[in-house]
């Protein structure tokens, strides 16, 4: 079989997965709630935080993006996978000359595309609100706050969005891996949320590792640190947006992207191992 044929099939499966996903009420509801939450941060202008207001809006927006994006990554991927199983569209699909890996990759890409839409919309809304508040602040406080023509580096808002999207990708791939052997939606969602918490707190294990002496405990912690991706790597929001001095180098961003990609590929391949033996 030609590799180009494989890519075509993956693209087709991803396309229908995405179309199926954007029609889900859950996605639309979550998107609206996220927009409303990010938008509501403007009401905090009455507290007159000065330049701190922009930082507050940014943190609030990034927090909403991460929180609802994580929920969406796990629930949408679970729903898209189990819908195919329960409705038996997977049966029709896999009875065609389609590899199971192509099916899984298509499902993942469809879900990741959905998350891209979500991330783009939220970062656009956040940027719009930040711009509006920045203009209002500059009008009120004058130009003494401006360092390099603007208080905010909007490119960094999107860079943060991109890194979060990479993180959502890992989460979606892991969810797909759990779904590949799980029999219920609930189990998949619960295990994936545990994984999210572990990955968010993974830096604790890394700190412990740094302070440990050589031995099996150190090897165990190192192993856990490798199995579970470190999500803190993607949370560089503090370094972005405001602080020109601490702006991350392109190579750092590329390294984080590569790190995320490795985990995505690894989880999809693990999902394939389970899915091969699964009764459809």
């Amino acid at each position, binding site marked *: 079989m030609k590799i180009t044929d494989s890519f075509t*099939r993956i693209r087709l*499966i991803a396309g229908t997965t995405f179309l199926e996903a954007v029609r889900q009420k859950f996605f639309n509801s979550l998107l609206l709630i996220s927009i409303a939450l990010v938008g509501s941060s403007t009401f905090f202008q009455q507290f007159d935080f000065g330049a701190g207001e922009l930082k507050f809006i940014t943190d609030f927006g990034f927090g909403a993006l991460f929180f609802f994006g994580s929920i969406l990554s796990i629930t949408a991927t679970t729903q898209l996978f189990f819908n195919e199983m329960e409705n*038996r*569209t997977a049966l*029709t699909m896999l009875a065609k*000359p389609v590899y199971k890996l192509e099916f899984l990759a298509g499902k993942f890409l469809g879900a990741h595309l959905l998350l891209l839409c979500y991330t783009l919309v939220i970062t656009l809304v956040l940027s719009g609100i930040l711009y509006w508040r920045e203009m209002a602040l500059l009008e009120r406080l004058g130009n003494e706050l401006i360092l390099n023509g603007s208080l905010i580096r909007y490119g960094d808002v999107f860079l943060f969005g991109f890194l979060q999207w990479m993180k959502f990708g890992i989460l979606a791939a892991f969810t797909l891996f759990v779904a590949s052997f799980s029999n219920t939606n609930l189990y998949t969602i619960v295990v994936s949320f545990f994984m999210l918490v572990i990955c968010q707190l993974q830096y604790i294990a890394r700190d412990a590792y740094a302070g440990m002496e050589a031995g099996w405990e150190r090897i165990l912690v190192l192993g856990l640190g490798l199995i579970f991706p470190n999500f803190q790597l993607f949370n560089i929001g503090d370094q972005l947006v405001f602080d020109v001095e601490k702006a991350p180098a392109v190579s750092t961003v590329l390294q984080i992207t590569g790190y995320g990609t490795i985990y995505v590929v690894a989880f999809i391949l693990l999902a394939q191992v389970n899915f091969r033996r699964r009764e459809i």
Partner: protein
Amino acid sequence: MSTPAIRIQNLTKDFAVGMRGMKLRAVDDLCLEVGDNEIFGLLGPNGSGKSTTIKIILGLLEASTGTCEIYGRPSKLVDARRSVGFLPEAPYFYRYLTGRELVRYYARICMVPRVEIDAAVDSVIELVGMTEAADRRVGTYSKGMLQRIGLAQSLVHDPQLVILDEPTAGVDPLGSAAIAEIVRELKRRGKTILLSSHLLAQIEGLCDRVAILHRGKLVREGRVDDLVEEKDAESLVVQGLSAEGRAAVEAEIKAQGGQLARVEKPRLSLDAYFLKEVHEREIEHATQQEGGEEL
């Protein structure tokens, strides 16, 4: 001798049940051959192993032991599925696509060349009689229409072997008759059809050969006529015979050393009776419509 469409040899499938390594045998040492250009019926009650066998043929499940080949190629190879079309039981499709978009989508998945897609899609939609409804969303289709569009997607890449899992389940007798006619047309076009069903009346008039499974084992296999005919009895269908004539026939049978086993009125099957009645009403209705238009 041509390669059989399906060759199953000593096929066994066990499913692990529970945590203690208990096994449930779904298919037990099954041996089966389906010849090319044959309509073959896989019969059996629920849980007899029909669907498991079909899934193994389609490469969706791996056999515990034994082999399964499609036109001489191991069925677990993805490439072997290029020559197979499959309609699952009670199919569900993406509801937001139109019938035409759905068939087109599966044509692209099966890598039908771009220049041939439109013709292939139109051709199968016409074959299953869905031309008028092809541009409606799948979500608006009735069960019978879903089965027909499902048949269209299974045929769009022109497979040599078509596998239909309970193709008439939940479909009304008219829809079932239409599907049966499509199956016959496929045979005329040189295709091989494997269908599983427990609606035996429909299978009887359709299949060349059948296999009966029970608890995963092959119970009987052969031509439908060979399996169901009473080898030691013949029936004479007589019309307009008087009581005296009948007594004379009975006496003659006795004189010839035979024995009249039973006398019964020839019957139409309920299925055939229903179709005849509906067909007559349809013709009546069409005539009335035409009359109304003329007025």
